[in-house]
């Protein structure tokens, strides 16, 4: 009966704390937001960003070539080099190409003074294959000029270029018909925006547990429990930690079931148990609320780093 009364009092106490109400509300809002957010379309669209420092007929013809060959890759222009680097870093594109001014002129004459810069990340898997498509188009738009450069016959340049255009568009040269004409869809699946409710639940459980200990230590320092025996003091400590941990565990448990079914429920219970035990053990070392006040942010920081890093790794 005494234990029940204590539980009742401690539950009321913890649930009146603004910090605690905020924690519970945060979890509930997060879960509701997740449920209300529309599922996004997963896309297999392979995007490639290009920044052309020089706007010339060559660069315009290159985009025309991409359209003509109906390339699998979605080459699109960006407005600056920084934007190009940003989109590659963000993983929004497979890779990015920076085409400097005078590149085309130098390429035609075989000079490598202003090379194209291909930006990729270790996650890029198709950059070399994409590069072949890009260069095949660059070669196509530059080929008449490359030809006149290769042959020292300035007087006949016009004729050479006309002939080149004629052959490029004729059936006499080697071509390969596209084989991939199956019904592959670039928009295959749908997925929900990932909100780390499970990870946040764990962090809040750890925090709540330490908050329970802090409240107990503060009460003890105020002399509220002076009349109690050592054994009863220990029981109060357990009740304080348990009552701080339990509501957040229940809410976290329900939120996780709503989001991902029962897959995380067992581990959440296990983590709560471990946290409960760890807090009791740490209470043997930390005996003053001022000490816990100093340690608490560091513990929380390490927990956040370990939990989120664990998810990332």
């Amino acid at each position, binding site marked *: 009966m005494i234990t029940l009364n204590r539980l009742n009092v401690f539950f009321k106490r913890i649930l009146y704390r603004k910090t605690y109400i905020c924690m519970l509300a945060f979890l509930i809002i997060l879960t509701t937001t997740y449920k209300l957010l529309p599922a996004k379309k997963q896309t297999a669209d392979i995007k490639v960003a290009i920044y052309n420092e020089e706007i010339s007929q060559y660069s315009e013809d290159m985009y025309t070539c991409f359209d003509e060959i109906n390339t699998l890759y979605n080459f699109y222009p960006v407005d600056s080099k920084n934007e190009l680097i940003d989109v590659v870093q963000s993983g929004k594109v497979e890779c990015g190409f920076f085409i400097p001014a005078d590149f085309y002129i130098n390429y035609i004459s075989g000079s490598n003074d202003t*090379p194209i*810069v291909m930006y990729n990340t270790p996650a890029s898997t198709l950059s070399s294959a994409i590069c072949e498509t890009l260069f*095949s188009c660059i*070669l196509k738009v530059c080929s008449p000029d490359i030809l006149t450069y290769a*042959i020292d016959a300035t007087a006949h340049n016009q004729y050479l270029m006309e002939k080149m255009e004629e052959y490029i568009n004729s059936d006499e*040269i080697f071509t*390969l018909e596209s084989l991939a004409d199956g019904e592959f869809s670039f928009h295959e699946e749908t997925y929900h925006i990932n909100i780390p409710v499970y990870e946040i639940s764990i962090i809040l459980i750890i925090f709540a547990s330490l908050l329970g200990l802090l409240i107990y230590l503060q009460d003890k320092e105020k002399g509220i429990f002076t009349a109690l025996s050592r054994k009863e003091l220990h029981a109060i400590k357990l009740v304080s930690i348990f009552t701080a941990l339990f509501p957040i565990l229940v809410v976290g448990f329900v939120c996780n079931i709503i989001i991902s079914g029962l897959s995380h429920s067992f581990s959440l219970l296990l983590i709560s148990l471990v946290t409960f035990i760890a807090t009791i053990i740490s209470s043997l070392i930390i005996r003053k609320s001022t000490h816990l006040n100093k340690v608490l942010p560091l513990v929380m920081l390490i927990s956040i780093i370990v939990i989120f890093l664990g998810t990332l*790794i």
Partner: protein
Amino acid sequence: MNNIKTTFRLLLTNMKRLKHYILQIIISVMVLLSICSLAGYCISKKLYEEGTAAIVKVAYYLPEDEDEKFNNFGLRIIKELDGTKEVAELIEVETIEEGYELLEKGEVLYYIIVPEMFFSGIMDSTNPELTVLFRDNTGIGSYISNELFLSYARYLGMAQSGVYSALDTLRQYDYPASDISDAQGNVNMTFLDRSLNKDSYMEKADATEAGSFTLIQRYLAAALMISLFFVSFVIMPYLQGINKGIRTKLYTLSTGHFHIFIANFLSCIPALYMAFVPCYVVLSIICKTFNPLGLITVLPAILVISLIINIISSICQNEFTSNMTILAVTLIIAYIGGGILPQAMLPSGIQGISSYIPGNYLITTIASAIFGA
């Protein structure tokens, strides 16, 4: 005048009290920096997991004819290209039937049967047809390899067009046979260079190393920013140490909240600077950089951090609330400023508000101070 005097005396008292915190500040900032840097390093290494493209297996049959030498030469070039290595694995079969078997078993996606006199046919523009059989042409792998082979075919087509155009033109204008032969070789070599020698016309750059600072430098700067914010856990008793009794006394001397805030704000700056200097030295040694000007250029960042810490400590009633608020605010500032994930990876809504939050400014200023602009 009295107000200024009292504020100044309060500031002096605060500075004297600061002496007792020096060791704690240095130890804690080094511990925090180690933890945050380690986390940043792990994230930077794991953020762009090395990916592998799905390799498509392609079988081919080469006939034993006069062109075998040229066919093999061409194939060797194709096999050596980075694009081929990345996407396709070419497997030669001895007989036409063997290729069919591989295709039937699903061991290869494509089967290419090279016709007899293929190379000669390309040279004399009869262009014998290649037979390409496929098992499945609906997967992304088949689309990628198809695109690759189309690019190679385009190279070949361009080179062919160049050679034919040159021959037609030079013959039209009655050039001597030796000149025509030279020109043919020249055109061949030029087109071969422009299509296959791409490495000369292109540089590869890791986007994570591009920009003003590399990814790891940004993470180290973010780690230092977070550590400086968290130094407040140590100095919070110092900032909130003006208890009720002292406050009442200060009020009688016409010193209000604002003066206490100013005194705390100013005395917090040397505390943060003291925390910054050892971190600056350690990071400079680790990263082998030396930017003495950074010891001055970092001051605006320290002022901003000090201001944020003092605003929070003034608003919050006790140490616990202040510490937890600083923890939450710091993580939010670091996240929005690109200290946890690169800014480009953040949702567009967050990117939109990042210019109004000092996170990116603080990280960039600290990074410039340590690694140079």
